[in-house]
């Protein structure tokens, strides 16, 4: 890493993070500010059994959102990458189109759709797919649905960028050698766009862990996420140390899966480096099964 990027990261990432962690070890001042004295009081109150449940819910909804987005993004990106060049830019534009509307407005629109008198409810009732008293809003399912809707473009774009560079004659070669379409997709296409998929995972997982607008608008009392708690501590409660402690906790919750991904990438890179080192073939059999 070069000096400017270290400076940049230190100024805008390391220092603010340290500040947040530091604040969590101060007491809350009654006026909403931060007390001078150091204390472990906040961290002790966080061991409240409510929090692990909320963090767990945050993680699984984020993970499910990520999986849902990637699964939907793969065929979508594949289809766009196979289109004519002139259509590709148009389709990519369509995918970015929702960003022309405010995020909050788009989430709010889902409240109208999922409302007990809303369009989706009526449609499902007409198709006899739901009961009249089933609540579509204010639960984890609603959060998941709206999260997938909101973050899908962030999954499609990196996967599409990778798929566009993919050599599709490799898929023909796999088919030619006897692989069914899906096997060719799995054995040749997925490894080929691996980096795009990893970017998509990060681009969806990280913001969805921190999201609070979606659970606030379409979630219910029993489906709060960590983002809502941080919001509550920061604004209505004016308890900045508590909000900081929760933020630090969430940061660790994100860092652990991230570290796992990074380690996996590093292992892959080492293999690739070996692969490129001439006369030093990788002595292992495997890969395709």
């Amino acid at each position, binding site marked *: 890493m070069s000096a400017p990027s270290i400076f940049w990261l230190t100024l805008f990432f390391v220092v603010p993070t340290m500040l947040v962690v530091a604040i969590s070890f101060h007491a809350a001042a009654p006026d909403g500010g931060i007390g001078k004295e150091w204390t472990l009081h906040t961290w002790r109150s966080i061991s409240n059994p409510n929090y692990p449940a909320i963090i767990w819910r945050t993680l699984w909804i984020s993970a499910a959102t990520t999986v849902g987005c990637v699964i939907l993004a793969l065929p979508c990106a594949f289809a766009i990458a196979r289109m004519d060049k002139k259509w590709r830019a148009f389709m990519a534009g369509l995918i970015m189109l929702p960003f022309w509307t405010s995020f909050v407005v788009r989430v709010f629109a889902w409240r109208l759709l999922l409302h007990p008198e809303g369009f989706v409810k009526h449609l499902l009732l007409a198709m006899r797919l739901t009961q009249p008293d089933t609540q579509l809003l204010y639960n984890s399912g609603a959060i998941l649905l709206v999260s997938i809707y909101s973050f899908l473009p962030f999954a499609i774009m990196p996967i599409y960028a990778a798929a566009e560079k993919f*050599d599709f004659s490799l898929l023909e*070669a796999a088919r030619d050698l006897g692989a069914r379409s899906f096997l060719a997709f799995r054995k040749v296409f997925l490894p080929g766009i691996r980096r795009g998929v990893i970017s998509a995972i990060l681009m969806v997982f990280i913001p969805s862990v921190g999201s609070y607008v979606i659970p606030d608008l379409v979630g219910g009392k029993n489906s709060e996420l960590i983002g809502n708690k941080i919001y509550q501590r920061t604004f209505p409660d004016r308890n900045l140390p508590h909000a900081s402690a929760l933020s630090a906790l969430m940061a660790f919750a994100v860092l652990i899966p991230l570290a796992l991904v990074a380690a996996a990438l590093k292992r892959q890179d080492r293999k690739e480096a070996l692969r490129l080192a001439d006369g030093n*073939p990788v002595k292992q059999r*495997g890969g*395709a099964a």
Partner: protein
Amino acid sequence: MPSDFLVFENVTKRFGSLTAVDAVSLNIKKGEFFSLLGPSGCGKTTLLRMLGGFEAPDSGRIYLDGVDITDLPPNLRRVHTIFQNYALFPNMTVWDNIAFSLRVARYPKTEIRKNVDVMLELIKMADHAYKYPSQISGGQKQRVAIARALVDRPQVLLLDEPLAALDLKLRQHMLLELDIIHDQVGITFVYVTHDQGEAMSLSDRIAVMNRGHIEQLDPPAKIYEAPLSGFVAAFIGDTNFLEGTVTEIDGDYCKLAVAGFPNILCFNDKNISVGSPVHLSVRPEKIRVTPTPPPADKDPRINVFRCKVTDIVYQGTYTKYWVQTDSHRISAIKPHSRFLLDQDAITWGDEVYCWWHPDDGYMLEHFTAADADLVQMPPAGYSLPKTPAAQPSPAAS
């Protein structure tokens, strides 16, 4: 049911308004090295892709070993393709690439190992088995692609311009290697190329294609020596076209009146009569260019005419001359046989004699005006703009 091994029956394929393959019927024998030769856009690759299962014909059927494979997807055909860019899987080693089809077909592990090792031996790549495609050279990639396509012994191997990406020396080497591999495995090869040299040196038979149909299907020597059409004559090698009418038929020979030439004698193997218009193809290497008339002891039937040398292109093993008669530009080739001992040197502007034996001219059955454009011809003389004499610059003196 067609009896040949691989049969195209009236196959047509259109892309929008373009008819890429136009009612092609074709029989290929088992074990044959068969080439589809033609300029780009002639439909040869489309024909190959229909055989591989990547394109579906609009009409017509394709049979392989008596089975109609027209509607089978690529993975259910025992037909493998060598792609122009090799299409090796970059995320797999050479070994895994070759093993791909066997693994997909769920061969037992020991069987896979045995077969892959045999192929590695055949292509002499055993030392590189665990390298990735990015680590090996173009020629090696080519060999891996061949091994990968042959390892599960397909019924037909399709080769789509497989040597196009290699440099000249490597291409010549791979030609020999392909020939050896074909002899060893005995699998039917269908080879697509626009390079007549490749097709000539490898094939048992060649189908010359043009604009979606087959112009001629014959062994290489027959394609070259006895072209059916002007297109074949001009596309394969180089030639001179002479257009005339028959004035006299005398046994195996006939006399032609060609504008600007004395009577031209020509071997006649076609069904013609006096007065028929004919097109004659005479290959440049059949024509002699000499400063003196042909010796008196030569066959008196030889066609001789006087002309003037307008262009000379030195090509190493031979020199190509373009000569001008009153009405035609004719090209002729003279090999350099002995250093300094060749006949008197011929140079630009010389008045020379051109002559060829009547048996070396070949009458064409089909000729279109467009065929004449395929003949190599230097631009018909530049007229350089007259530049005023350079002013002597003061610095030079």
